[in-house]
């Protein structure tokens, strides 16, 4: 249909083209039914929430509360720091996993197996409660201290989240490294480049294109996962919202507020991720997908042309 329109539009003498097909389109009655059903359910849900005794005013009242803003800051800090640990750990693990040394490769395999196979909440609680079995931390002559002084809630949270994330990042990095054509390594070796230099100069820069998009997903996931660290007594957005809720007598409203903040942050990150992906797709042969703004403009022009045609 569109093709016919295009060729007709491109020709300098419009009437000479073939006559456009005018047919009565198939009616999809099922679609009307499902649309009506979906809207009905939505209305029911909204109505139910309208009936609930929700003090909506509490949300804007506390939205920019100092504690909430501190919580947002700490959530972001946790996200960035845990991801940093995760990415560095992931790269090291991926290289270990791909190395020819069976010992390092098995250790990396075991690490990934363990940290991916156990829930992050369980890992956090284990880190938190290690103080029950270790009185001191003793690294020989390097460092010695009371366990409770060493393992602060922040460190517990960072270890719990970061080490777990490293296992996931390792798999992402490994996939990225494996995605680089073997001919690239051969060409580099044939030029007399060592293994390390080949990895650094040739393989990793190309692997980045595969690694970056899923890493963006991981950042967004991490932002949400930070809400779990309330169990290890590290106060962040969720914890502060919970506290305020209990003191002000509007717990559900404060959960809504926290959810809204998480939504705002993940939305901002999604937009960022979208453009980072576009950036790394440059130079590849496939054409870039249009940005949302370009899509909107394209829709507007098709609408206007339809009107003209009608």
């Amino acid at each position, binding site marked *: 249909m569109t093709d016919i329109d295009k060729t007709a539009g491109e020709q300098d003498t419009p009437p000479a083209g073939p006559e456009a097909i005018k047919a009565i389109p198939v009616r999809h009655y099922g679609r009307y039914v499902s649309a009506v059903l979906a809207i009905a359910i939505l209305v029911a849900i909204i109505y139910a929430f309208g009936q609930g005794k929700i003090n909506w005013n509490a949300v804007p009242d506390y939205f920019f509360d100092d504690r909430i803003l501190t919580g947002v800051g700490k959530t972001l800090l946790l996200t960035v720091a845990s991801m940093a640990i995760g990415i560095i750990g992931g790269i090291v693990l991926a290289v270990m996993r791909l190395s020819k040394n069976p010992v390092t490769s098995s250790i990396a395999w075991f690490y990934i197996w363990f940290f991916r196979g156990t829930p992050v909440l369980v890992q956090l609680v284990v880190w938190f409660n290690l103080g029950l079995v270790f009185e001191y931390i003793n690294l020989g002559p390097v460092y010695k201290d009371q366990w409770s002084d060493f393992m602060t809630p922040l460190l517990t949270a960072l270890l719990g989240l970061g080490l777990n994330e490293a296992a996931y990042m390792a798999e992402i990095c490994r996939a990225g490294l494996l995605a680089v*054509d073997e*001919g*690239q390594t*051969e*060409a*580099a*070796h*044939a*030029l*007399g*480049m*060592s*293994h390390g*230099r080949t990895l650094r*100069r*040739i393989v990793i*820069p*190309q692997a980045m294109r595969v690694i970056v998009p899923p890493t963006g997903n991981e950042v967004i996931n991490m932002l949400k996962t930070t809400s779990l660290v309330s169990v290890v007594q590290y106060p962040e957005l969720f914890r502060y919202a919970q506290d305020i809720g209990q003191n002000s007598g509007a717990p559900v409203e404060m959960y809504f507020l926290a959810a809204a903040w998480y939504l705002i942050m993940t939305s901002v990150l999604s937009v960022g991720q979208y453009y980072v992906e576009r950036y790394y797709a440059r*130079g*590849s*042969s496939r054409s870039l997908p249009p940005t949302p703004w370009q899509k909107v403009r394209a829709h507007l022009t098709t609408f206007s042309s339809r009107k003209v045609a009608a």
Partner: protein
Amino acid sequence: MTDKLSKTQDTAARGTVPMVKAQGVHKSFGHVEVLKGIDLEVRPGEVFCLIGPSGSGKSTFLRCINHLEKINAGRLYVDGELVGYRQQGDKLYELRDREVAMKRRDIGMVFQRFNLFPHMTALENVMEAPVQVKGAGRTQTRERAMQLLERVGLADRAGHYPSQLSGGQQQRVAIARALAMDPKLMLFDEPTSALDPELVGDVLDVMRDLAESGMTMVVVTHEMGFAREVGDSLVFMDDGVVVESGHPRDVLTNPQHERTQSFLSKVL
């Protein structure tokens, strides 16, 4: 003319040490024996062509020369030195990665699929090895790289990425990249097989020019015309063995072996 002269002098100066010498080279991948005892010699300054049906082991043999593949039996020498091993007394010691890399500096290789680094421009591709491996100065290397791109007729494409170049142009950049290390031996692994027919000529011209300058070249190819015109020696391989060898004109126009005859009747 001066090139030809220096070529003969060069050959004389090196005496009888062949650039490549293979003695009973065997290579297996798992249970499949790909090379079943290859014996041959490539003299310095010579253009040595390897032809044969696909799967005959000619590419594998080429890759053994710069130790991209390890041989299972026999001896392989480049410029008088063992490839991949060091001999002390009657014991063989495997070379370290670093030592292997060191030896590969002197051997340029051109691949069927070009294998240019896609995240670097043509110029950066040519500069990469001298700067990173030899530690050469950037400005000096850039000048030399531009000369090499000029030589392969692509000086005006220096700033282009591989994806912006045609196959023939990519392959010529790949040749310039290999030459940037000033190799004493160049290996070509079916350099024109992945190219559109009309782009083959440009690459062959560059290779012909290189041969005239006296470079020792081992060329795996299906371009019989090139082998006949430019080649000094030719080997026909089939099923992991050398079936027939000699001067390209003789082998191509008057093949003795029945297997060679049937192969040539299909490709010529």
